[in-house]
């Protein structure tokens, strides 16, 4: 198992009187090589979940294990961080160096990797995210999507087994979002990296192997995306929406058209409409 959570609770202390459980008694297992989408509205506890995965936050109770290593074990923390690469939300606040390749090299340099290998890793990571030609550039003029792909390259150079995208698409425009998503899927497919993509856009979960919906610090749904979308009424109740095309099919069905079920993307919607019209 790549990731195991056992009865994990994480509480923030607001002040002496108030405690908020951002994650409540959560148990979860993620198999190596899966692409998991984790969706929830703001305040559902999904960001806390992300930070629990590489020991940036430690559980108040319960245990988080990454390939068998508990984040509570102080000696294993760097091993865990090596295994779990994490990309954050704001594309501007993750780069350390002013030049692309220097930034990508930062992780392996910290780990004391040999010079020649660092060079190889930097080249590999940058070509994986399609940014090799920018290796000598500064990131200031890049688009949000490019900056996030660089951030991904930065963690790839550490050679993680699990890649966590902590709302890394939230601040991007639609084009940037699809760029980042494409890279994540490629890494999952070609390199077998386990991806945990945390987002509030349901349509980004479409191609995931597994969709986990969080609400109020707990798991509300867990299954194949298409299965979860069937519960659209319940999803609405927790401030979430199904993809646009699914909603379109539902709306047409309500008027009286025979839309069948299970439409999740444009292709399927167009196909169905062609049959009907």
């Amino acid at each position, binding site marked *: 198992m790549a990731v195991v959570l056992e009865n994990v609770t994480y509480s923030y202390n*607001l002040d002496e009187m*108030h405690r*908020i*459980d951002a994650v409540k008694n959560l148990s979860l297992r993620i198999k190596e090589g899966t692409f998991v989408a984790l969706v929830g*509205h*703001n*305040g559902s506890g999904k960001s806390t979940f992300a930070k629990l995965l590489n020991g940036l936050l430690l559980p108040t109770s319960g245990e988080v294990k990454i390939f068998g290593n508990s984040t509570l074990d102080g000696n294993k923390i760097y091993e865990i961080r090596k295994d779990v690469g994490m990309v954050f939300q704001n594309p501007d606040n993750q780069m350390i160096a002013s030049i692309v390749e220097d930034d990508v090299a930062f992780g392996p340099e910290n780990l004391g990797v040999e010079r020649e290998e660092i060079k190889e890793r930097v080249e590999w990571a940058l070509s994986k995210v399609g940014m090799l030609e920018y290796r000598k550039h500064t990131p200031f003029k890049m*688009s*949000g999507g490019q900056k996030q792909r660089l951030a991904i390259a930065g963690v790839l150079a550490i050679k993680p087994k699990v890649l966590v995208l902590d709302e890394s698409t*939230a*601040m991007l*425009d*639609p*084009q940037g979002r699809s760029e980042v998503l494409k890279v994540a899927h490629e890494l999952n497919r070609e390199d077998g990296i386990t991806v945990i993509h945390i987002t*509030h*856009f*349901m349509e980004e979960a479409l191609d995931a192997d597994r969709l986990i919906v969080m609400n*109020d*610090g707990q798991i509300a749904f867990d299954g194949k995306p298409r299965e979860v979308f069937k519960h659209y009424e319940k999803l*609405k*109740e927790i*401030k*979430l*929406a*199904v993809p*646009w*095309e699914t*909603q*379109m099919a539902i*709306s*047409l069905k*309500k*008027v*009286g*058209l025979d839309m069948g079920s299970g439409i999740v993307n*444009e292709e399927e*919607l*167009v196909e169905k*409409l*062609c049959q*009907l*019209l």
Partner: protein
Amino acid sequence: MPITIRHLSFTYSAGTPYEKKALENINLQINEGDFLGIIGHTGSGKSTFIQHINGLIKPQAGEIEIFDLKLTPEKRPKVNLKALRSSVGMVFQYPEYQLFADTVAKDVAFGPKNLGLPSEEVEKRVKQAIEMVGLDYEAVKDRAPFELSGGQKRRVAIAGIIAMQPKMLILDEPTAGLDPFGKEQILNLIKYLKTHCSPTIVVISHDIDEITRFANRIVVFNDSHIVYDEPMQQLFKHSRQLQKMGLDIPRAVKVVNSLRARGVDLGEDIVTAEDLIKAVVARYNEVHSTSLDENAGVFDMYDFSQKWLTTEERQMLEEESSSEEAPIDKSIKSSEVSEDSKK
């Protein structure tokens, strides 16, 4: 009175190696009552453009006529910027990052105070503005802005602008970074403001599906020029050109275009989800000789009828109910706003 922009050009850092053209010979008229959407890439010049309308950037060439004021490259006569800024309200990207005062009420009062209004008037406007953005005045006025949730902070920031009661409101990426539900709430708020606060509204957005929800006219910036300026229903005749520029087209248009490619032509001016539902049902009736109600379809991705509470808000309410005052649900207000504007 319309806003007229003639031959506006602007270059950043002219005469240095960093020189960059941002606007080139822009001509545009914004009419009273326009609900104008502006789209374009980052760096296409659209942000520079709206900063001109508010007098934040002085034109280098060309002129802008706004209400009774005229902005030109000349130093004199001096423009009354205060008057300009009270009539054109500007909501920047991530406006919650400009909140600074220790209470919500004080922050919202910053604009009206700067206009030199008497204190009773300021107070009246602050209350009005906070309520208009769907927050409960009594519940939030003395709270620190930093305690609020992301969506609420953004609404406080917008309240700070509309408390100046501008005749025209410009919003730059008003929904950026919010979750879909928060986006929806802001979109509903903008529609509400159009009828209740500022009759002319300009919105910049990356998300074309968002813009088509309310705009009646869309201007497309590309490479420091205006390339299209069309009524919303007409713009997507240029779908292919827009996509070539790397701009998105609405999902409904994508579906219509794919259907057309496969021999099902639903017509030209379908832009929104509602348009598509209507057209599909009409066609369905035609083909199958049924009489389904074309207007019965609703595209309700979100449910605003519920009381949405975050854990934090719930906690706050519990606290309040233990005191004398009756608990007030702040989010009820926002759902009222959204329903109002749906009508």
